[in-house]
């Protein structure tokens, strides 16, 4: 039996729009196990990114409980959330968000300022296949390479989970496959919990667990007994 590390219990997120309210996340509950490769699917505006932001401690929930490693993060204040992010979350963004003034290896070395024992930047960079690109600036790298640096930066902290918001959204499909393969490998070989938010339903075939969201509610949760390899997926 796998260990449950993430649990959403009746989570609500309301936005105030003028005088009215809008529920971006409406009473959502789900659980994710250690080492799972999870895909959250849904059309744009469905609330999937909000779920990711709530889990990542980037936004405050209006109601419910989000339990990570046995601890409820709903209600934590800014500094406590920052600490939570530092220890547990590795983010991979759609637009990479590398620091343009730092080289590839320096972007990863930033983690030294955040956690006590990060992984060795050069080694992590090698693990995403970018040996020899250490001293290049983001602008000297291709989009796919930048995203790989971004992934390396996320795992260098050795976080509980990687949260990826449309990680291939800005890439061509071939490069996207390379990135997704890398992410799946992280999960399979290193036992990392990886959660990917996307609107590309093709990815569902490769996930351990698929959570479909629409209008702020969960439509269905599917568990794949035999997830495909990324390379086998029919795009």
């Amino acid at each position, binding site marked *: 039996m796998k260990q449950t590390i993430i649990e959403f219990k009746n989570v609500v997120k309301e936005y105030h729009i003028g005088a009215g309210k809008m529920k971006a996340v409406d009473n959502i509950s789900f659980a994710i196990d250690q080492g799972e490769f999870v895909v959250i699917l849904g059309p744009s505006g469905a609330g999937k990114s909000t779920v990711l*932001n709530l889990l990542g401690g*980037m936004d405050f929930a209006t109601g419910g409980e989000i339990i990570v490693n046995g601890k409820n993060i709903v209600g934590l204040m800014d500094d406590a959330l*920052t600490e939570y*992010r*530092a220890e547990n979350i590795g983010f991979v*963004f759609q637009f990479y968000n590398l620091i343009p003034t730092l080289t590839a290896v320096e972007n990863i070395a*930033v983690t030294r*300022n955040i956690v006590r024992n990060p992984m060795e930047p050069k080694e992590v960079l090698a693990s995403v296949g970018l040996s020899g690109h250490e*001293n290049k600036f983001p602008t000297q790298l291709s989009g796919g390479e930048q995203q790989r640096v971004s992934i390396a930066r996320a795992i260098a902290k050795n976080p509980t989970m990687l949260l990826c918001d449309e990680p291939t959204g*800005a890439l061509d499909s071939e490069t996207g496959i390379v990135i997704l393969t890398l992410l799946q490998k992280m999960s399979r070989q290193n036992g990392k919990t990886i959660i990917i938010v996307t609107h590309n339903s093709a990815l569902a075939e490769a996930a351990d667990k698929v959570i479909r969201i629409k209008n702020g509610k969960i439509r269905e949760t599917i568990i794949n007994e035999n997830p495909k390899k990324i390379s086998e997926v029919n795009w």
Partner: protein
Amino acid sequence: MLFRKMLRDMSRHKTQFLSIFIMAFLAVYIYSGVGGEWLGLRKSADNYYDKTNLADVFLYGSGFSEEDSEAVRNTDHVTAVERRLEIDASAKLDGTPNITLFFVEKNEISSLYLVEGKNFDLNDTEGIWIDKRFADARELSVGGTMEAVYNGFTIEKEIRGLIYSGEYVFDSGGSEMTPDFYTHGYAVLSYKAFPSYDLPVYNTLLVTADESDITRLEESIDHALSGGYSVFLTQENHASVNTFNSEILQHKMMGDIFPVVFFLIALLTMLTTMTRIVTNQRTQIGTLKALGFKKGKIMRHYISYGFWLSLAGALLGIITGPLTLPHLFYPSMSSFYTLPEWTPAFDISFILAAAILAATCTFVTYLACRKLLRDMPAITLRPKAPKVTTHSALEKTRLWSRFGFNTQWNFRDARRNKIRSIMAIIGVFGCTALLVCAFGMNDTMGDLKEWQYNILYQFESKLSIEDTADAEQINKLTDELNGELLMEGAVEIKGSGEKKTGTLTVSDNVTLIKFTDDNRNFIELPEDGVMLTSKMAEILDVSLGDEIRWHIYGNEEWVSTTITAINRDPTSQGITLTKNYLEELGFDFTPTSILTSEMASGKYDGVTSILSISEIVTGWDDFTEAMMLMVYILIAAATILSVVVLYNLGLLSFTEMEREMATLKVMGLKSGKLRSLLLTQNIWFSIIGFVLGIPAGIWLVDIICSSSGESYDFPIKLHLLNLLMSFCITFGLSVFVNLLFSRKIKRLNMVEALKDAE
């Protein structure tokens, strides 16, 4: 519609645009305000000199005849000559104040300026026209009588009018700095009112000329009179004209230099802000282009941002400057200077300065927009390719890897945003320079005051002796007050060529006035020879042991003496010698004042006025009031400058780095670390700007001080404590501005900041 877009953009970026506006305003405000002030003085004075036909040359001698006058009149380039008798009398009033009487021949040159009463009349033998400021201080009015005594004669005349004189714009009334209108004044009478059956013996020749080559003029006049005069004084060297000119020059200097700093800041703010706005509106520009807007129209739209703002700031400055600033200075100045009118002037150069400012701001805006607008719409519609970062030389050294992330990040960021960095440095530099200048002026003036009135002057009271006082009276006074006798006057000194006017001080074993050398060590007055002040020695190009020739004003006999000592004096330049040596040279010792360490008050026979040291110091403070006012304005301007620049800069870097900040925050970097990241750059720039600003500030002090006139000679001082104070103010402001941003970091909305790459 585009105009509305501009207004909305401005309100969205109000801090930047407000600061451009403020800087443009301040630059023009100070330039035209101080400009209106000094130019107003210049014009008022010139107008006044013109109206009263102030003499171009004053010749003093023991007596000028009709023939002398005619001879000078016939000299080339001399346009008019008039004779005048000038005598120092004392008025029969409380404390027997000194009154200088002028018996005039025609009242055509250096004529009196009537303020109140009847016009001057040469045939009026019973009338006197007196100095209005003296009259005010003594509550004398037209129709009253005035009695004056000199050489045993008593003159009693009716006051016909109250007047000003172009020769008395500044009237120190002797050796003291401050004019005291209660203790001295002047009056004008017709030569026919002279109390003798003979005509007066004229001791002054007033000359007007159309020759600007003074040396040549002096040569030909000297020839015409065959040397029969003692002093040839040009209008420029006349004490009143000279002092007032120096004051004006000093104000001009400040008004010219300081606006430059604000001007530069306005430009840099404009450049950075517009570059940012245009970059942010890249896709908007692309859309406008795609919609079919002509390039020129879009260009004009963006350029108009810079144009309207700088124009509005400049216009406000040009209107309010001359209306407000001069009136801040004039009241304190009018207690020293007497002018018939105090009117701020307006000059075409103010408009020109405002126009240049607006034009340059507009041009800078053009530079900021040009590149983007050249591109095709298809390119402009795409997001901008990020700026390429390159490795600098420093990064190739081994040292680089030792730097922490903070240092590396900030170093690269500064390199990448050069204009922003330069702007920060110039802002802090300007702030520091202004502060150091302000504190430097303050300390220099304070040091000068301490030196003159605490170290050199050791007396408690100084009593001016009446011209008519006899030896018995003086002896009685010295006994009574335990006093020491001093003779002060003026001399003309000739060194290796040039002739200069200086002060004469003769000491009868005076111990209550000290002398110091360059290093401010006390030195003794030598028994033989003369002691020359170091600045005078420099001007005359002579040194210790050299011979100088000099003569006392009013006496045509030149003597030659050896310089046996050189002293440094902050406020007056000339020679000092002992009573014995003066008498050895064949001159009479006629004491002009008594110094005492006692607090003298009340009435003494034979004394015209009593000045206590605290009154003298108060006079000095009043004299420097205008200067100090300037200092306070500088400090205020420096504060505004640095807050505006640093806030702007903080805002600029914050918005530019918002995405990076958000990324770092999402990764788990604590707010405190983010704050220190921002603070580091701020501190670097503050330090660089501060270090560069110190010499600039001292240079400013030097410029201002060196324009204070030939009789001053003082070193620049800046106390360490005040340097520290400038440092604290600069850094305090820097940290304060940073604190404003830490609140923003705390509230940074990560979700929003990272939403899209636009």
